[in-house]
């Protein structure tokens, strides 16, 4: 490559990284703003907006709802998605490829379409309980993440390991627990994290299924921004951001992000 081309690529890489990170830095900075209107240059720092998060109207129920739905849908998806992935990767299922595509297809569908489709579908069968419809809808969101990750994880898993464990004195369920689960731990973790995050910040699907008393956190946040755009929201966003970073950092310590991203073994 010529020198010029290398420089262009470098500029691109650095520029894009800044482009992605700067908004996050701005919102973090804004959350410490001493004044209700965020202005540069900063004239000091204050944490008072953080104190006000908890006093936002309907914040705690929404946070609880979002955490509940995200955790539950992730756990259910991990169990069901892994079983489905085993059938596809291992079970000699006729037409396994079609099922695999079907399982991951919601990933490629616009959230709005998915939301409308689910709303209409649930109405058609008379399924209208808000909390339950939200959970089922979020299963549709999270299952593809789990299925995709587990299918590729299982494709690389050597099932002879289970037979080896059995001949070494381990029962079949014991072998799955002692050998398959640890070997697939990185896949479980990455599937779990992405599925949790996908559910936790979903807006386009949830908006169709929420009602006045059942609002997820993203819906509630959009409502706050319309009502009173002060740095409280920036503080909340910064907390969510920090939580995500800690989650990824801890997972990296546990299994290694490079293994999670599938860029190396």
């Amino acid at each position: 490559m010529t020198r010029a081309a290398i420089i262009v690529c470098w500029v691109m890489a650095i520029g894009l990284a800044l482009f992605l990170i700067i908004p996050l830095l701005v919102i973090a900075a804004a959350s410490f703003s001493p004044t209700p209107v965020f202005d540069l240059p900063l004239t000091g720092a204050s944490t008072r907006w953080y104190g006000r998060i908890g006093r936002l109207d309907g914040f705690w129920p929404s946070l609880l709802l979002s955490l509940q739905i995200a955790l539950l849908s992730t756990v259910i998806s991990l169990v069901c998605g892994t079983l489905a992935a085993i059938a596809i990767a291992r079970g000699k299922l006729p037409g396994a490829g079609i099922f695999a595509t079907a399982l991951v297809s919601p990933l490629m569908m616009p959230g709005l379409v998915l939301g409308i489709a689910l709303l209409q579908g649930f109405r058609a069968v008379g399924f209208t309980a808000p909390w339950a419809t939200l959970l089922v809808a979020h299963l549709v969101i999270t299952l593809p993440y789990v299925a995709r990750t587990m299918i590729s994880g299982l494709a690389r898993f050597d099932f002879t390991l289970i037979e080896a464990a059995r001949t070494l004195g381990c029962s079949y369920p014991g072998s799955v627990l002692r050998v398959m689960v640890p070997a697939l731990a990185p896949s479980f973790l990455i599937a779990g994290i992405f599925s949790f995050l996908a559910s936790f910040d979903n807006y386009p699907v949830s908006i169709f299924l929420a009602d006045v008393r059942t609002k997820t956190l993203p819906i509630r946040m959009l409502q706050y921004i319309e009502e009173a755009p002060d740095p409280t929201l920036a503080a909340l966003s910064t907390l969510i951001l920090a939580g995500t970073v800690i989650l990824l950092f801890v997972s990296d310590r546990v299994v290694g992000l490079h293994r999670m991203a599938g860029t190396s073994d």
Partner: protein
Amino acid sequence: MSESSPHLVVRGVSKRYGPTTVLDHIDLTIRRGELVTLLGPSGCGKTTLLRAIAGLAQPDTGKVELAGRDITHVPPHKRNVGVVFQSYALFPHLTVAGNVAFGLKVRGMARREIDVAVDRALSLVKLGHLASRRISALSGGQQQRVALARAIAVEPDVLLFDEALSALDRKLREEMQVELRRLLQEVKATAIFVTHDQDEALTMSDRVAVMNKGRIEQLAEPRELYLRPASLFALNFVGLSTRISGTVLSADNGKVDVETKVGRLSALGNFQAGSPVIVAARPEQLRIGGEDETNSASGRVRSVVFQGSRTLVEVDAGAGESLLAELSGRDGAIPGVHDEIRLSWPVAETFAFPMEAQA
């Protein structure tokens, strides 16, 4: 239990997958401390037989007994067999020592005893210095040794090797053959090797079972297998041979005279006059020159292949038949290509096999 009493008994074991019979009434008895090889072409059922013994495949009929216990319906984890898989099947999330300790931990052995047993197993395979390595940081040969150490650490009643050496390169494989045999004799293991490499079978084992299409064609010591093959298949599969087809002229007391396209030959075998047969002899039995009371045939030398201590001479005997002679360096003159020569070999080393059994 005495040294010669049966230790592993496979009796009438059959296994079908859909329409194909993979194991066809297998009978196999192995004594304590014996090293037996299952030798046969791809797809003849070697792995399936091994899996039936390990409990990983359930036979349709028949029984398996190990150390005086009927284990036909015992699940694999209660059989106390050790298996070394072709892919080694080492646990990637554990270290070398963790892999070797796995079976002992599962058995609920005390921490200190495990450490001692792991050290012992690893030093047997000369890997003591790598105990804390990750599996992915080992060479193929080292992984093979870890798999072996893991299998012997639990002191199984029988060790099963499914083409355990085939992933190694030739030189390492030959070293491991010798080392493995020494090691197994040292720990007095009873073992079954699966291989389709005849040299490995002859080097490693006390007895060799030649398998073909789900049946054991012959179970014999390596020497007997080579010198007295029980079937045309066994003859073909182990070692080289000269084979000539013909028709039995007369039979007499375990000996037959056979009319062939290269002349009249005598061979050992029991046949009725008129039966179509194949007459065979090992190449080292053939000598240059014609002698009385021997079989002989002549022809033109087609090729001469020098192989160090021996030279293989292939002779075109006409009518589509060829003779293969192995001449040692001490046999004097080696003929050249296109020479007309006569080869002779003893009747006592000539065998007749039924034609239709040709593999």
